[in-house]
């Protein structure tokens, strides 16, 4: 082990810049520097101590700030590339093969490569998650490597420091001890007024305050790690769920991924701002834009199945609650929340027809077909009936003389009917669709004429469960505490001692806000008649300036 032994006799680990005991500079660079590098108190970062086993090498890799910054940059670049084409969430196909085909078809070979690289599902791709994970390791290892030595060094710091340490502090003074023996006591009193913690040792004084500000960055990193942990938990079953469902007015459906619960939509409501009733300013906007929605709402009833009920058994549903789901006002139950997300207006629900004589126009009565529950027979009275032979909710044409439907959704309903009237007891067959009537067996005497239609709306709902929210919030709060701790508080230290020549030596250090510590040191200097300090950095800057002027 190549420990460095300081002139004071203290043994320092390899990589130490300033002696842990007296503060003498230990490296040749540190000795050359006029001002001491006070980062991490000049202690050795743990990663620098040795580099022998594979574990040490891996550890040192993650401990490097350069590696951390590189990871952040790579992640940012990848995230930026991920915005070039839409993510899989926003393409209208599902299933790996179809998604690959979609990217190739729409975006060509670029899209194909993009998808193959996993850029189309960035957050879900293994390499992106690996990068985030590596960043997590980097944050933890780099923090541990710095916070432990810093903590130890601040904990055991000496009151009397070596002259070379004092001299290499930015604020430094040396001079006659005017008040003699009383200097330190007067300084102590003044410093205590300024709310410093003061430590005395024979002929030396150390005043310190706000040390906790030094932990800010590490507290901040702890917050980040907790946040990442919360995100990680989301992938475990039971912690996070995000599903969608489409629910028609009047329909009761099982809630996806929430066993035993059912949801019925009573009504979907879309309200718009009324120009007459709003402020002038908004009135103008309404005139310009047209209608502006003021409310999207689904009135629902939540049901629970009895404890021992099985899927499919819906005869004894128990009403849990009635509620109006509005945007940002979800229906909450157990761990779940159901949000209003989307809607479709005016799907056909009931169609009204009139049966009439084509020649005379005489009406034999009306009938209404509920598209949810079409019936086989409709009796119009007066001996007239209509028999429903076939219902095709999404009529798409004939195939071998057979009407076809391309989906179960009533986008284009069509009916095959047989009309029986006192005049035509054998019945007449007709195929009735929107804007189309076919009489397959020759001309009919009667026709079923479309009168009007009832519609209903469909609500698009999102069902969410998120047990990680409090972890994310906790991580965020700790993160912000760390930021505040590191930014709004400063770690200030003032050293005063009398050296062997009877001269008074004063030095001061802060991690930020030098203006603040100068103001305080001014007060102490005045009260205890300390020698006037100089800001060595200003002096250095001025010298540099002079040099610059000379050389130019």
């Amino acid at each position, binding site marked *: *082990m190549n420990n460095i032994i300081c002139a004071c006799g203290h043994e320092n680990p390899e990589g130490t810049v300033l002696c842990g005991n007296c503060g003498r500079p230990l490296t040749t660079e540190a000795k050359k520097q006029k001002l001491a590098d006070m980062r991490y108190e000049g202690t050795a970062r743990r990663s620098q101590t*040795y580099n022998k*086993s594979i*574990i*040490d090498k*891996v*550890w040192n890799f*993650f401990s490097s700030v350069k590696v951390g910054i590189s990871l952040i940059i790579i992640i940012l670049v990848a995230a930026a590339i991920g915005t070039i084409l839409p993510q899989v969430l926003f393409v209208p196909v*599902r299933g790996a093969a179809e998604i690959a085909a979609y990217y190739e078809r729409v975006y060509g070979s670029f899209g194909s490569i993009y998808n193959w690289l996993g850029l189309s599902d960035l957050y*879900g791709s*293994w390499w992106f*998650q*690996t990068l985030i*994970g*590596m960043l*997590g*390791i980097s944050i*933890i*290892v780099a923090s*541990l490597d710095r916070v432990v030595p810093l903590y130890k060094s601040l904990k055991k710091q000496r009151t009397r420091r070596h002259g070379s340490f004092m001299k290499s502090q930015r604020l430094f003074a040396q001079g006659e001890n005017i008040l003699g023996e009383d200097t330190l006591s007067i300084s102590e009193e003044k410093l205590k007024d300024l709310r410093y913690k003061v430590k005395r040792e024979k002929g030396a004084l150390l005043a310190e305050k706000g040390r906790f500000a030094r932990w800010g960055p590490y507290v901040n990193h702890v917050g980040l790690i907790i946040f990442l942990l919360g995100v*990680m938990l989301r*992938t*475990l*079953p039971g912690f996070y769920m995000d599903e969608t469902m489409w629910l028609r007015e009047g329909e*009761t*459906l*099982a809630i*996806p*991924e929430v*066993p035993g619960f*059912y949801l019925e939509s009573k009504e979907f409501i879309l309200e718009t701002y009324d120009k007459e009733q709003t402020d002038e300013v908004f009135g103008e906007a309404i005139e310009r834009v047209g209608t502006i929605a003021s409310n999207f709402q689904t009135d629902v009833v939540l049901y629970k199945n009895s404890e021992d009920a*099985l*899927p*499919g*058994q*819906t005869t004894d549903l128990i009403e849990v609650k009635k509620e109006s789901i509005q945007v940002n006002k979800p229906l909450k139950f157990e761990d779940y929340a159901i949000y209003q997300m989307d809607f479709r207006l005016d799907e056909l629900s009931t169609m009204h027809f009139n049966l009439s004589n084509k020649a005379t126009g005489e009406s034999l009565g009306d009938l209404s077909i509920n*598209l*949810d*529950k*079409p*019936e*086989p027979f409709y009796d119009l009275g007066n001996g007239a009936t209509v028999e*429903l*032979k*076939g*219902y095709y*909710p*999404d009529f798409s044409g004939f195939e071998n003389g057979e009407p076809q*439907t*391309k*989906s*179960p959704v009533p986008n284009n309903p069509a009916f095959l009917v047989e009309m029986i009237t006192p005049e035509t007891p054998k019945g007449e067959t007709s195929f009735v669709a929107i804007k189309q009537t076919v009489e397959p067996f020759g001309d009919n005497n009667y026709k079923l004429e479309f009168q009007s239609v009832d519609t209903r709306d469909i609500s698009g709902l999102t069902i969410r469960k998120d047990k990680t929210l409090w972890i994310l919030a906790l991580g965020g709060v700790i993160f912000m505490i760390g930021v505040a701790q590191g930014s709004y508080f400063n770690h200030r230290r003032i050293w005063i001692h009398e050296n062997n020549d009877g001269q008074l030596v004063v030095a001061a250090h802060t991690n930020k806000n030098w203006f603040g510590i100068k103001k305080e040191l001014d007060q102490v200097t005045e009260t205890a008649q300390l020698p006037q300090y100089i800001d060595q950095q200003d002096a250095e800057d001025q010298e540099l300036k002079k040099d610059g002027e000379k050389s130019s």
Partner: protein
Amino acid sequence: MAQAKKKQKRFIVRTIILSILIIAIVFTIYTNATKEKFEVLAIGDTAPDFTLVDLDGNKHRLSDYKGQGVFLNFWGTWCKPCVKEMPAMDSQYEIYKDQGIQILAINIAQSDFEVQRFANQYGLSFPIVIDKTRSVMEAYNIDPLPTTMLVNPEGKIERIVIGGVMTEKDIAGFMEEIRPK
């Protein structure tokens, strides 16, 4: 001596920290990659029990058929491959219904009229139930139609057939797989 001890301690601490972190990351990536597969039923899983009513008003509860093989077919009248499979299923039903195999055709939330008319048109003799609230579809995580789940006499899923059209030969083969021995 103290140095060597310290060194060893540090090595152990570092190894433990790095392993915990790496295990956590690998685990996260693994669960993410296999996420969809967790939710879907797999071969060997117990088929979730359900109860549905058929067109004649008879209740069918899956667990009542324990000891028999059950051929669960999820379908819709508008789905062409589903329609194509139906006659083949019906003729195989005639052969296997006396050998301890039950077919349950589960229609997804269509009207009684459409399903009844379809059954009449094709003269289907096996029970057809309608999952009005889609709760059974949810429990089985059915995505594309048709999907067929073959449940063996022990109530475990023996085979899952997603999409496509099963021929009469396919169906006969599946029936043999779930036939009580």
